[in-house]
Each structure stands twice: as structure tokens, then as C-alpha cells.
């Protein structure tokens, strides 16, 4: 659908509904009463009409209702529900403030902590975690970690302990769209995955979409992790921070012009390297990050936001090895209210990822990265109490630096070498409709039209039969083809272009207030590939755009679910089943060299992937003991068949389990509030061991033993499980002003399970015999950290 058609469609809908009875619109924002931070996803329920809405990413809501008296129930996770009566005789601007639950813990038992499943909403396969929940979960070395927390949700795993990235419903790690204030984060890990780049102190809210993904998101197949930074306290200047074993954090926030604007600046850094320095050790390994946000209300209809993030990991070993990498983002946003019903946001986003490496002993400097410019205009049109429209457009421009090598100095034996820079443009338009039909049926339907233009300037190789990988039938192996020539494309010449229609639909039917069934379908296109033949991403992995050889990855996902609240919302049950099919998944020929390869097309083959599974999430929402049990049964496979009858394909063309397949995945998360001073948290995790390929024999060649292998990933590492506990001690819980501190004690892997991160097979260099070696990363890891605010 073209943009013009889309607009006509919207106008048509608008005029169709405009002739109904006399109605007025109530709109406004919902904030936290203490710091005036806007709240996302607050549910507003209109008792008389049974209509409901939620606040958007900027805390804005709008609802059009018949003239008269209405009772509003305003509720949000972690906040007390507020009841408000209004009389609607004209368009009304009404802002609300909510009070956090724990502020009055002693007087009331929490009863309104609405974590219950959104029974009537069509949205499914979405998990929200409040930052309070994240902070109460026990973690390795006391580092609160958003990415580690989401691993306890159904359908989310990662390749293993201490590994970066995460896998959603069997999707690979590069299929997750990770957004920080709408800006794409290309590498979400510090220290190779031990910690994430998100400083939980600066984060307001996060939402993970695993399926039924709305049309406003695109560009990745498997999930969207949407993370929002805090805006900063509009009421007064405050600071908070923490001192931990690995990092220390400090955050400052306050008003710019009281009530009008606010700022937030947060920094975090590790400091183990300082001890190395003290010990005169020349090696160094550290990371740091900086989050900033400015918000300013120009007037009732216009708000400005500026978000920034800058993070780096640095490793130095003597003077011989120097490695730096990290993300930076900058995002300027303008919220504008065209009317009570039409909300808009314009974003200009810059995001980049840099990787630099200096190897003195080989004598070179390497750097690579990706730069991304994104212009985005989104509209939300609150048409009526039954229909809400989201529509918008965006265009992203990419500048890829696949890598360049420079000699360190004149004595180096390395020549200057620069891989071709790559450029691409990815525009998209979308429209999404949220519609209620009657009282029991809701449907969200949308369409995204995405386009991708791979741009010059570059020479593109040509190959015989257009095949950059050839099958050597003599040796029975795949080999790089020799280019037959090349075509030159000038600046902004189109090398290849793609376009895809991506329909999305989600619907729910509720039997009553407590029970519903939902179903969804989504098609997604992904035009970027992370060139990586390892099981989890490494910082050096390179993003590369689709071109005439690498086609865009395409996904179709179906999901169905059953949702129920029990015992007056005390418990909730969510059961979902999904099936997904992925086309054009890259696989790598044996011995593929991926780094500093100027013609990646010569080492990749195109295959398929599929995943299916059952997810069960059972939650206890209230009381002193709360938490959840999450269980996923799933299978994730990929297949790269031969292109002709002679070719073997990868793994003889058979389906094989991906490296992150986990048949069983169980998480039990609990928190217990003993009293005002003591809170306890616990997590038990149990998973099928990671699929691996063990040798099925060995042979001697040139004096060394070489293991021989059968089919891929037919073996598994041993069962993976551990139990973690934490305790939070607040010495003066009733203190609301001045210095407030808390201690967090935690023990990771309480019973000291030696989980295998890998099992390697080697010939012992001393005895010459073969042996299996298990690497376990974490034994029992106790830690303590101190958090404060004032």
C-alpha cells in the first residue's frame, strides 16, 4: 500500500465514525506523584462504558466517550489504583498522578498490584517487567541486569552462562531489535555477555514483544525489546547510586525549570582494573557507560526529549593488545499534540557501534562498525472508545564499516587493507488499528510496508551462474567461487532493492472478565545479517546489509494462547504455543573466514530455520510471597540443503538443532517480603544442556590426533541448573527524605553446581593422550552491594 492510500484509508475511517452521537474527549498524561516521571502502559478503565485504554510511551492517553459522568480506574504495575470521577461536558484535559505501592507498605497490604494478564487486550506474547521486579532478582556479582532478568521469562534463553545476547522463541541473537529510547543498540553486552549495557538505575520501563509484534516495529524477525530511560525528577534534585563488587553507579536528576523540564545523568563504571594498576600490573579490563536524558515541556502541546547513551569496553594487555568497543546513541524527540485525539512524535536518532583492536604482536590496528541515522514520525489517533490508530513512517540510513586493517608502524609486515564500505537505506510506512468489537472481541491489525535499498559506492563481484559459492564435487566440499568480474556502482547507485508487505494481526476473545483466548500472526522482514558463525554473538561480529547475494530474512509466526486470572486476580496463568518459520537464514560453509572478508557471499549458503514450542507462565501477583513459574518446551532447528542433487548442503542437508536450542527451560522466581526491613528473592533455573558436537572418533595425522565428527549438534552438554538467592536490607525503611540506604546481599549458584559452559576435547600436551575437559564459569558467587539515594 502506498502512503497516499494509507492516508485515504485513515480519512475514510475518520469520516465514517465522525457522525456518531455527541461525544467528548478526555486526554492527558499520567505521572508518578513523587518525581513527576511519566508512566508507560498505565491502564485506564472507564467503569460505566467498560472502555479502557493505556498510556503510550510518553505517558499520554486519550479517550472519546459520550457526554456524562464517568468513573475512571487508573492502575499500573507497582502503583496503587486510583479511582476518579469526571463529568464530561466538553473536551477535558486531565492529568493524573499515581502513588507507588511500597511507599505505604505498613498501612496496606498490596492488593492493587495489577500484574494480571490483560484479559481483554488483543496484545499477546508480550512480557513487561517493572524495574522494581528486576532489581529484586538475585544476580551474579550483584549487578542488576535487565537482559539476565528477561531470561527468566517463557520463550527467552541464551546460549549459556556468561554469553552475550539472548534468543527469543528460537530466534538467533541478531533477530532481536533492542531499542533504548527508540534507538537501536547493536551490541547489548559488556565483557562478552557477563553484564548488559543497560544501567538499571536509568531505566524506567521495558517491554519484550515475542510475537504478534505491532506494525510500528520492523527490521528484526524474532523480538523487540523496548527499553525506556527515565526522564528525571521534575520536582527536585536527587541523587542515587550504588557501590558493588564490579561496578559503582551514580545518578543525578532534577528539574531544569521547575515543573517544566528535567535532566538525568547516570554513569556506571567497573573498577577492578584500578586494583591491577595498584599492583603494577600493566593489564587492564574495564567498562563504563553514561546515560543522559533531558526533557522539556514547551507548552501543553509540545514536549522535547533528548536522550543519549555512550558505553565502552576496554581491554589492554601490556602494550601488545588493545581492544575497545561499544555503542553510542543520541535521540532528539518532539512530542506534539495536534488535538486531544491526535498525538505525534518525531524522532531524529543516531546510533553507532564501534569495534577497535590493536594487536602489537601481529603488528596491526583493526576497526569496524556500523552507523545508523533514523528519522521517524509516528502518530497515534484515538478515534473513538473502540478504535485507536497508529501510523507513521521512518527512514533509516546505514553506513557500514566492515573493517580496515592498518599496520601499527613502518616495521610491521602488514599491508594497509580496507574492506569496501557499505551503504543502505531502509524506509518503511505502517498503519496499525486497535479495535474493539462488542465487549468480548478485540482485534489489532496492521500492515507494514518496508523497503530496502543497498547503495553504492562499491564494486560488486559477478560470478558464473550468479553463484558465489561453488560445490567441488571432487572433494565434496563447498568452496569460494572466483569472481568472473565486477560491476561498479557509484555513490547512491542502487545495487539491490527489496520491498515487503508485512501483515500483523492479533485478536482476543474473552469469555468473561477472567478468561480469554488469543491468536496472532506476524510476518517480519530483516534486511541486516550479523555475520557470525558462533553460537552467541561476539563483539567483533559484523553487521552486513542484504544485497544481490544475501537476501533478506523473512519470518512467519503463528501463536495461540489461553489466559486466565484466578482468585480475584491473585494468580494468573498464561499458556501460549507458537510456530515460526524463517527463510533465508545464513549458514556458513566449513572453514568460512568471516573477518576481514571482502566477499562474505563466497562463504555463506542460504537455508531455513524453524522453531515451535509451548510456553507456560503461572504467576502469583499478591501477598508477601509473589513471583512466577515459567516453563518452555521447544525445538529450534535449521537446515541448509544442497542447491542441486550433487551438493551435500550443510550437515548433509539435514535439519539440525541450533546452538541455542533448549528442549526444557524452567525458571522459578520468587520474592518474599518478611517485613519492612528485609526482602528476599530467589531464582531457580533448570535447562537442557546446550547442543554440541562431540567427536565420534579420532585419527592420527602428521603426528597429532585429529578428532572426527558425525552430524552437527547431536550431543548435549549436561543438564544446566542453579539456585540463586538474595536479601535486601533497608535499615530505615520509613525514612522518606535525606540519605536512604539499602544493602543487597546475594549468592549466585547457592549449591555450587559446576555447570558446563563447554566441554572441550584435546590431546594432553604432556602425556599425548586424549581427554575431555569441562569448563565451568561460576561456582558459588557471593556478593554484596550498597545502594543509596538522597
Amino acid at each position, binding site marked *: 500500500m502506498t502512503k497516499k492510500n494509507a492516508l485515504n484509508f485513515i480519512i475514510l475511517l475518520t469520516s465514517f465514525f465522525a457522525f456518531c452521537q455527541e461525544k467528548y474527549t478526555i486526554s492527558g498524561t499520567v505521572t508518578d506523584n513523587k518525581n513527576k516521571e511519566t508512566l508507560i502502559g498505565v491502564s485506564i478503565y472507564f467503569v460505566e462504558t467498560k472502555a479502557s485504554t493505556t498510556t503510550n510511551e510518553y505517558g499520554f492517553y486519550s479517550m472519546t466517550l459520550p457526554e456524562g459522568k464517568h468513573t475512571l480506574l487508573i492502575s499500573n504495575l507497582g502503583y496503587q489504583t486510583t479511582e476518579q470521577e469526571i463529568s464530561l461536558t466538553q473536551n477535558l484535559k486531565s492529568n493524573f498522578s499515581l502513588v507507588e505501592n511500597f511507599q505505604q507498605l505498613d498501612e496496606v497490604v498490596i492488593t492493587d498490584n495489577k500484574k494480571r494478564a490483560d484479559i481483554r487486550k488483543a496484545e499477546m506474547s508480550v512480557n513487561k517487567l517493572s524495574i522494581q521486579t528486576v532489581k529484586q532478582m538475585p544476580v551474579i556479582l550483584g549487578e542488576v541486569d535487565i537482559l539476565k532478568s528477561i531470561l527468566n521469562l517463557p520463550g527467552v534463553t541464551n546460549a*549459556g552462562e*556468561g554469553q552475550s545476547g539472548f534468543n527469543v522463541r528460537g530466534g538467533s541473537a541478531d533477530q532481536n531489535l533492542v531499542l533504548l529510547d527508540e534507538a537501536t543498540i547493536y551490541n547489548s553486552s559488556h565483557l*562478552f555477555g*557477563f553484564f548488559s549495557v543497560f544501567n538499571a538505575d536509568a531505566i524506567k520501563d521495558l517491554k519484550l514483544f515475542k510475537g504478534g509484534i505491532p506494525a510500528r516495529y520492523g527490521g528484526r524477525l524474532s523480538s523487540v525489546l523496548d527499553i525506556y530511560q527515565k526522564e528525571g525528577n521534575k520536582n527536585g534534585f536527587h541523587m542515587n547510586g550504588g557501590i558493588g563488587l564490579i561496578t559503582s553507579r551514580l545518578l543525578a536528576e532534577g528539574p531544569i525549570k521547575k515543573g517544566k523540564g528535567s535532566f538525568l545523568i547516570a554513569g556506571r563504571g567497573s573498577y577492578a582494573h584500578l586494583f591491577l594498576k595498584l599492583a603494577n600490573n600493566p593489564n587492564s*579490563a574495564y567498562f563504563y557507560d553514561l546515560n543522559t536524558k533531558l526533557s522539556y515541556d514547551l507548552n501543553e502541546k509540545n514536549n522535547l526529549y533528548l536522550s543519549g547513551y555512550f558505553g565502552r569496553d576496554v*581491554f589492554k*594487555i601490556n602494550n601488545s*593488545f588493545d*581492544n575497545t568497543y561499544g555503542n553510542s546513541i543520541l535521540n532528539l524527540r518532539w512530542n506534539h499534540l495536534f488535538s486531544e485525539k491526535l498525538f505525534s512524535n518525531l524522532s531524529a536518532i543516531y546510533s553507532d557501534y564501534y569495534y577497535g*583492536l590493536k594487536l602489537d*604482536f601481529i603488528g596491526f590496528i583493526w576497526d569496524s562498525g556500523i552507523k545508523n541515522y533514523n528519522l521517524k514520525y509516528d502518530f497515534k489517533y484515538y478515534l473513538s472508545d473502540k478504535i485507536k490508530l497508529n501510523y507513521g513512517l521512518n527512514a533509516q540510513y546505514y553506513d557500514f564499516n566492515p573493517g580496515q*586493517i592498518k599496520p601499527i608502524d613502518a616495521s610491521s*609486515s*602488514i*599491508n594497509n*587493507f580496507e574492506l569496501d564500505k557499505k551503504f543502505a537505506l531502509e524506509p518503511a510506512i505502517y498503519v496499525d488499528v486497535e479495535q474493539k468489537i462488542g465487549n468480548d472481541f478485540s482485534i489489532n491489525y496492521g500492515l507494514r510496508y518496508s523497503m530496502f535499498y543497498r547503495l553504492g559506492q562499491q564494486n560488486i563481484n559477478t560470478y558464473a551462474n550468479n553463484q558465489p559459492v561453488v560445490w567441488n564435487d571432487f*572433494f*565434496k*566440499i563447498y568452496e569460494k567461487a572466483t569472481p568472473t568480474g565486477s560491476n561498479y556502482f557509484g555513490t547512491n547507485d542502487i545495487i539491490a532493492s527489496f520491498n515487503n508487505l508485512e501483515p500483523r494481526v492479533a485478536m482476543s476473545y474473552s469469555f468473561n472478565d477472567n478468561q480469554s483466548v488469543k491468536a496472532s500472526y506476524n510476518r517480519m522482514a530483516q534486511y541486516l545479517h550479523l555475520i557470525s*558463525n*558462533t553460537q*552467541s554473538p561476539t563483539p*567483533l561480529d559484523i553487521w552486513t546489509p542484504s544485497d544481490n547475494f544475501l537476501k533478506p530474512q523473512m519470518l512467519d509466526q503463528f501463536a495461540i494462547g489461553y489466559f486466565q486470572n484466578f482468585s480475584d486476580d491473585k494468580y494468573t496463568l498464561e499458556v501460549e504455543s507458537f510456530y515460526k518459520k524463517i527463510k533465508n537464514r545464513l549458514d556458513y560453509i*566449513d*572453514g568460512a573466514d568471516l*573477518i*576481514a572478508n571482502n566477499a562474505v557471499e563466497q562463504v555463506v549458503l542460504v537455508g531455513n530455520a524453524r522453531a515451535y514450542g509451548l510456553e507456560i507462565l503461572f504467576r502469583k501477583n499478591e501477598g508477601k510471597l509473589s513471583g512466577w513459574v515459567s516453563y518452555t518446551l521447544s525445538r529450534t532447528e535449521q537446515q541448509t540443503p544442497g542447491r542441486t542433487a550433487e551438493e551435500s548442503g550443510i*550437515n548433509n542437508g539435514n535439519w*539440525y538443532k541450533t546452538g541455542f536450542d533448549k528442549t526444557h527451560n524452567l525458571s522459578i522466581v520468587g520474592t518474599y517480603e518478611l517485613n519492612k526491613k528485609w526482602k528476599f528473592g530467589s531464582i531457580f533455573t533448570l535447562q537442557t544442556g546446550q547442543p*554440541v*558436537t*562431540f*567427536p*565420534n*572418533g*579420532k*585419527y*592420527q595425522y*602428521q603426528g*597429532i*590426533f*585429529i*578428532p*572426527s565428527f558425525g552430524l552437527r549438534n547431536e550431543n548435549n552438554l549436561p543438564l544446566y541448573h542453579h539456585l540463586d538467592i538474595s536479601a535486601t536490607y533497608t535499615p530505615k525503611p520509613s525514612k522518606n527524605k535525606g540519605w536512604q540506604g539499602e544493602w543487597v546481599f546475594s549468592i549466585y549458584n547457592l549449591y555450587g553446581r*559446576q555447570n558446563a559452559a*563447554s*566441554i*572441550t*576435547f*584435546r*590431546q594432553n*600436551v604432556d602425556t599425548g593422550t*586424549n581427554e*575431555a*575437559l*569441562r*569448563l*565451568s*564459569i*561460576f561456582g558459588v558467587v557471593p556478593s554484596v552491594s550498597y545502594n543509596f539515594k538522597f
Partner: protein
Amino acid sequence: MKKIATIFLFTVLLSLISCEEVINVDLDTAPAKLVIDASIDWEKGTPGTTQIIKLTTTTGYYSNVVPSVSGATIFITSGSDVVFNFNEEVPNSGLYLCTTFAPIIGETYTLTVIHAGETYTASEKMIPVPTIINTSQRDDAGFGLNEIEVKFFFQDDGQENNSYLTKSTTPINVLPEYFAFDDRYAQGNEMFGLYTNKDLKPGDAIEFCLYGISKQYFNYMRILLANAGTSNGSPFQTPPATVRGNIINQTNESNYCLGYFRLSEVDKFQYIVQ
């Protein structure tokens, strides 16, 4: 390079908290396959007439015995149709010897092995190698700045793409150490092979061999050495696959053998650590 960098860092990082332990893992054993180690090495300054081809089979991963294969007929035919026969001089040794081989740089040779009624053949060119012209030693390598590192320099031919294999043998290591690389980033430059070991000490002898190899063999060795390395099953590794060489079973294609037929000129350098 990616692997070097990541494994390198991962190791540094993990050494602080991780724990390595030798464990028992039950492994299946696939049916035995024939392994042909036909490496014709012509050391500079020698006639290169004596050559050995070794026939073995695969065996269980933990087995300490390498089963040898006897009774095979083996010969190499030169480009000018000269036939060199390889005979098993010591019965049941699996070692087939030829004392009349005549190596010629750039010549294409064909290997024929007949065993158990099946015929295996391979063709390969003899690849030249430059001379090791210089060495250097430093004593402040490694993380602790106290490891000895020795470099062996040679001049790459800028007129063609070359691939190299190095083999370092020392008394401190029962296994030879191999490394395969090419001149991709150093075309026409003075290049070096490198040996370092934390246990290396003054007086130790390093026998360093530089082999000229074909591009096909370079690709083969890279995968083979990765498989032989200690990183199988590590998160930074692709799922390993058995690598097939250039020797083809002409009788029954699916019953393929392992190993390779290579012909290399070799420059050997003995270095005593200072």
C-alpha cells in the same frame, strides 16, 4: 583472527573465576575409516629421495592405539609418467617407504592407493618455499611480560598468492605445533612464523619447519587444526565437521578416506634459545 581475539580475551577473563576439570564423557565410536597420511616433504639441501606414506584407521576417541593398515599397494606417478612404488618394509607397520623418489618443484604428481579392493587416488603439485633468512628473540612476551618468543623471518613472493604451514618441535612439548597462514595481508612483505611457550628457557632447541603449501591444502589444514585445537565445543566455535581431503575413493565414492596427499618444499631451521 576473530577467534584469536575472542578466545584470548575470554581466557584472560575466565582465568579469574572459572574452573577447568578433566571429566569422563561417554562418546560413541563411528565405524573405522581409512586414513592416508601422504606428505611428501623435500627439505632444502637434501635429495628428497626417501619418502614415507602412512596408512592407519580412525579409532575410539580415548583409544591409545593407532590401528595401522597393512597390505596396501601404493605408488606415485610423476607428470612424466615415472612410477615410484611405496612398500611396507616392516610388516604390519602401516609405513610404506620409497627411497627413489625424485622431487621436482611445480610438478604435478598422482597418488594411487589400493586397499581392500578399493582404489584411492589424488593429484597435487609440489609447492616451493622461501628460505628462512633471519630470526629474532624477545623475552618480554605474553601476559606476564616474561615469556620467550622467537620469530623466523622469510621473504614472501609478491608475484603470487602463497600459503604456508609451520611446524615447531621443542623438547618441552611432546606434540609438534602447527600453524597455517597465507600472505593475504602481507603480499610481497618479509613475513614471519612465530613460536612462544611459557616454559621455553635458554638452551632449549626449537626445530622450526616452513612448508610451501597449496591453497587447497591451506584451507584443509585450517579446518583440521581448528578441529584438533582445544576449542571444540567452545562458544566461539562453529559446530565442527569432519574435514575431507583430496584423496578420492574411485571404487566406492561414499566410503571416503581421511588424510591428504601434499607435496611441499621445506626449509628447516634449528634455533637454540638464547
